[in-house]
């Protein structure tokens, strides 16, 4: 851990960046040689980032990076966070993809479980499924199918590219891990 001032500055920079919370000076001290003055290094770093888009910021003896307050006026960052689709959602999507056109009743029969409207809504909102007309059976139930956007999302040229269930079994994807 013997390194020069320049490396120490880089180490501090990396540590502050990689930590979500402000970092205590005590913890920073562990990572730089004792011969160096931490406070001075931190002040130097703060100066480096003065007037930039991100600043060095401290509360008492804790330090971190923050976006510059002046940036707030220019930015409206929409952070797109991806949330995993629920098990019910994935299963419903899978059934629609493999058995389309398929009625809600049929999906429920395959899953042996009730489908909430919310589950279909999420898939609709993502643009992955759409109504595909009515089945010509008594009651004329509506059927569901997948969209072009579905193909696009899963990087498929067409539905034929979906591996068959037999192929999936051969691929070595074990369903055990899904639990």
């Amino acid at each position, binding site marked *: 851990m013997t390194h020069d001032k320049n490396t120490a500055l880089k180490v501090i920079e990396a540590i502050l960046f990689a930590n979500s*919370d402000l970092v205590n000076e005590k913890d920073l001290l562990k990572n730089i040689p004792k011969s160096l003055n931490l406070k001075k290094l931190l002040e130097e770093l703060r100066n480096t980032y003065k007037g930039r888009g991100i600043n060095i910021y401290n509360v008492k003896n804790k330090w971190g990076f923050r976006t510059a307050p002046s940036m707030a006026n220019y930015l409206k960052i929409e*952070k797109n966070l991806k949330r995993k689709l629920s098990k019910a959602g994935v*299963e419903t999507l899978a*059934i629609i993809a493999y058995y389309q056109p398929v009625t809600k009743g049929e999906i429920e029969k395959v899953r042996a479980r009730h489908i909430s409207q919310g589950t279909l809504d999420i898939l609709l909102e993502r643009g992955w499924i759409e109504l595909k007309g009515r089945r010509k059976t008594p009651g004329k139930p509506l059927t569901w199918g997948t969209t072009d956007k579905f193909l696009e999302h899963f*990087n498929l040229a067409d539905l034929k590219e979906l591996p068959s*269930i037999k192929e*999936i079994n051969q691929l070595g994807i074990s369903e055990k891990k899904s639990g």
Partner: protein
Amino acid sequence: MNDFLLNIDGYEGPMELLLDLAKKQEVDLKHISILELADQYSNYVKNKIKTTNLTLVADYLVIASWLTYLKSRLLLPEKKNEEIPAETLAQNLKEQLIKLDEMRRAGVKILSRPQLDKDFFKNGLGKNTFVENKYTFDCTLYDLLRNIVDVDTRKKLKNFKLALKKVCSVEEAIKNLKKFFELKKDEWLPLESIIKNKETDTFIKKSYTASHFTASLELAKEGLINIRQHAPFAPIYIKKKAVKK
């Protein structure tokens, strides 16, 4: 299958063993001697058979016999009607070894690169005052495939389920009979009349008859009712016993 991988000195398969033997011959795999390699391999596997379960080395034996075959063809003058010349086969083997060797080193090379969350890191910052979180639900093809297999398996399992129909339990029949005698106290009543005959399914009907009969025996044993039947298969009558005071 997986167990034997560890059984031959840590080789994962015959190709790995061949590659290792070949590398002992020459620095450049292009110039290895297939004849020599065939001998080395055969000797190695022969020695191993003595100490290892024969079935565990089946994969290795297949390659051993193929190498012996190749060796004999390389030594004998080539017949004209052979489909693929022995030299080509030997060359193919060399090329395959070279390719495997390349890929092993490529793999090591890839894994020796800096890795995210090990050698370099993302910004750990989670929240920011002007960042609006917009959630979208995501699903990968992998999730999809795993789940269709899941559903498919469940569907198959369901087909093996016994079709259990609704049956009438004896407890339920006892309750029925007791309730009935609260209304009709001092008459002999055919058991059949007590059984609700709304059910049309013969299976369920039989179930009701059987459990009500069992229930009547149970109640008779407890001294609560009398049972009467004039002849075999004749209708069964039951009557509540007078309560002794």
